[in-house]
C-alpha cells in the first residue's frame, strides 16, 4: 500500500517539474504545427479571406512547372553536398586531432571551431564580400596562385552561385560534426586499438574495422541533425543569392518564405511547409531505422 502511494507522489513530482517545458512544447510547438496543417487547406491572406479549398494548395504546388518541386530538388542537391562534405571534413580532421603526440593540437582544435561561433548572417555576408567578382579577395587569391586568369563572376552565374552557397555552408557547419565525431572517437576504448595493433592491422584496416563501426551511432545522430538543419536553412542562401540567379539556389525555405511573405499566398506556403515536414520526418526515419537495425 505504501509503495503504491509513494509511486504516485513520484509521478506527481515528475509532472510538476516537467510542466513548464511540457506547456512550451504543447503551446509553442504542437499547436502551431497543427495550425499550420490547418492553414494549408485554405486560400487565405490570414486576415479576412479564408476560403476552404480542400487539397487545392497541395495540387497546385505539384502541378505544372512547379517552383516548389524545383526548390525541393535544389534543397536536396544542396543538403546532400553540404552534409557529405561536413562528414568527410569532420572525419578527416577529427581523426587527425585525435592523434597523440601531435604538436599544437589544442590550438588547431580551437581554430577549427571558430566558424561555428560566427553568426550565420555574418558568415553569409562575409563570404559574399570575399566572392565579390570585382573587389573580392577570392578571385585575387586564385589569380595570384595562377589557378584562374580572369575574374570569375561567382554569384551571378548559376553554377558559381550554387558553388558559393555550398562552400559557405560547408565552412560554417563542419565544426559541429567535427566535435561530435571527436567526442565519439574519445569514447572508443584504447584496448581495441591495442588488440588491432597486436594482430598487425594497418591504419586503414584499423580505421575501417574499428573506428568507423564504433562511431556508427555518433555519425548517425550527427547526420540526422545536420541534414535536417541544412535542409531547412534560410539565412545563408537568402543573404547571398536571394535564391537566384534563375532559381539556381532557390532552396525550399526561400520558396516558402517568398510564397508567404512576398506573394501573401499563405495557404500554398503552408502546404509546402507540410510537405517539407514530411520530408524531414522521412529523412529522420530512414536514419533511425539504420540505427535500430544494429543497436537493438
Amino acid at each position, binding site marked *: 500500500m505504501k509503495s503504491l502511494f509513494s*509511486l504516485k507522489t*513520484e*509521478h506527481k513530482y*515528475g509532472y*510538476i*517539474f*516537467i*510542466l*513548464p*517545458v511540457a506547456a*512550451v*512544447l504543447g503551446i*509553442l*510547438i504542437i*499547436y*502551431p*504545427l497543427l495550425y*499550420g496543417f490547418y492553414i494549408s487547406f485554405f486560400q487565405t491572406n490570414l486576415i479576412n479571406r479564408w476560403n476552404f479549398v480542400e487539397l487545392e494548395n497541395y495540387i497546385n504546388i505539384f502541378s505544372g512547372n512547379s517552383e516548389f518541386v524545383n526548390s525541393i530538388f535544389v534543397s536536396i542537391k544542396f543538403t546532400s553536398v553540404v552534409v557529405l562534405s561536413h562528414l568527410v*571534413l569532420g572525419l578527416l580532421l577529427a581523426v*587527425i586531432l585525435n592523434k597523440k603526440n*601531435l604538436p599544437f593540437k589544442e590550438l*588547431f582544435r*580551437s581554430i*577549427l*571551431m*571558430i*566558424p561555428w*561561433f*560566427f*553568426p*550565420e*548572417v*555574418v558568415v553569409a*555576408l*562575409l563570404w*559574399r*564580400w570575399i566572392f565579390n567578382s570585382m*573587389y573580392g*579577395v577570392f578571385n*585575387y587569391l586564385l589569380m595570384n596562385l595562377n589557378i584562374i586568369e580572369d575574374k570569375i563572376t561567382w554569384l551571378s552565374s548559376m553554377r558559381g552561385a550554387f558553388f558559393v552557397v555550398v562552400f559557405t555552408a560547408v*565552412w560554417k557547419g563542419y565544426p559541429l560534426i567535427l566535435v*561530435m565525431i571527436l*567526442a*565519439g572517437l574519445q*569514447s572508443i576504448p584504447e584496448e581495441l586499438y591495442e588488440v588491432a595493433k597486436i594482430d598487425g592491422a594497418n591504419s586503414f584496416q584499423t580505421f575501417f574495422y574499428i573506428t568507423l563501426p564504433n562511431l556508427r*551511432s555518433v555519425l548517425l*545522430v550527427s547526420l540526422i541533425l545536420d541534414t535536417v538543419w541544412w*535542409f531547412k536553412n*534560410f*539565412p545563408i542562401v537568402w543573404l547571398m543569392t536571394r535564391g537566384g540567379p534563375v532559381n539556381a539556389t532557390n532552396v525550399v525555405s526561400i520558396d516558402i*518564405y517568398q510564397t*508567404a*511573405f512576398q506573394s501573401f499566398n*499563405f495557404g500554398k*506556403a503552408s502546404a509546402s*511547409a507540410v510537405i*517539407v515536414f514530411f520530408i*524531414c*520526418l522521412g529523412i*529522420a526515419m530512414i536514419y533511425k531505422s539504420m540505427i535500430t537495425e544494429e543497436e537493438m
Partner: protein
Amino acid sequence: MLKKMKINNILSLIILIFASFMVLFPVAWMLSTSLKTMQEMFVTPPRWIPQEITFRAFARIWTDYPFVRFFYNSILIVSTTTIVSLFFSSLAGYGASRFNFKGKSSFLVFLLVTQMFPSVMLLIPFYRVLNILGLINTHLGLIIVYMAFTTPLCSWMMYGYFESIPKELDDAASIDGCSKFRTYWQIVLPLSLPGLAATGIYAFIMSWNEYLFALVLTTDDSMKTVPVGIGSLVGQYRTAWNDLMAVSLVASIPMLIAFFFLSKKLIGGLTGGAVKQ
C-alpha cells in the same frame, strides 16, 4: 616505423595548417575590411593591410545606423530567453532525471524529435498567432518564439547533466527533511553550474543568431534584432562593406567570448547525450 610515423604526422600537420588557413583568412579579411576607408575598400588589387588604417567604421555603426537600438533589442530578447529557458529546462531535466512517471520516455524522445521539425513550418502559424495577440513588433513576441526553439534541446542537455550527479545526494537531503523543490534549488542546482553554463550558452547562441523569424515577426525598424539589422545593410548597389564588417565583428563578440571561455564545456554538454560512455 618511426620514420613512417613522422611522415604521417607531417601530413596531418599540413592538413591542419591548410584548414586553419581556410578558417582564418576570411576572419582576417573581415578585420582588414573593417579598418579601411571607403576608397581603399574598392582598390584593385585588394590590400590585406590597409594603407590608411581607420577605426571610423566602428564609430559610424553607432552614429549613422540604428545599431544601438538593434543591440538593445537583441540583448534584451536573448538574455530573457536564455534565463527563462534555463529555468524551465533545468526543472524539466531534473524532473525527468529524478522521478519516474508515465510517459517519461516519450517526453524525452519528443524533446529530440522537435529538432527535426522544419522551423519554416512554425513560421506562418506564429505570424498569425502573434498578429492576433498583438505581439508582432514586440520583444515578448520574439522571446516566446525563441523559447520554443531553445527549451527542447536545453531540457535534454540539462537532463544529461543531472544524470551525472549522484542521486544519493537527493536521498540524503530528503532524509534531512528537505522538500523536493528545495533539494532541486539549493542542493542539486548549485552543483550543476557547469551544465547550466553550457546549456545557457547554447540557448544564447541559438537566439542571438536567429534570422528568419526575427525578419518576419518584426516589421518596424525600431524592433529589429542585430542579425536582421546586419542583413539589411547589404544593398543592391554599393554596399558599405567596411561598416558591415565592423558591425559583424561586434555582433560576433558575445559568441567569441563564449567560445574562449567555455568551448570545452559546451562541447561536452552538447555531445553528452549523443555519445555512449
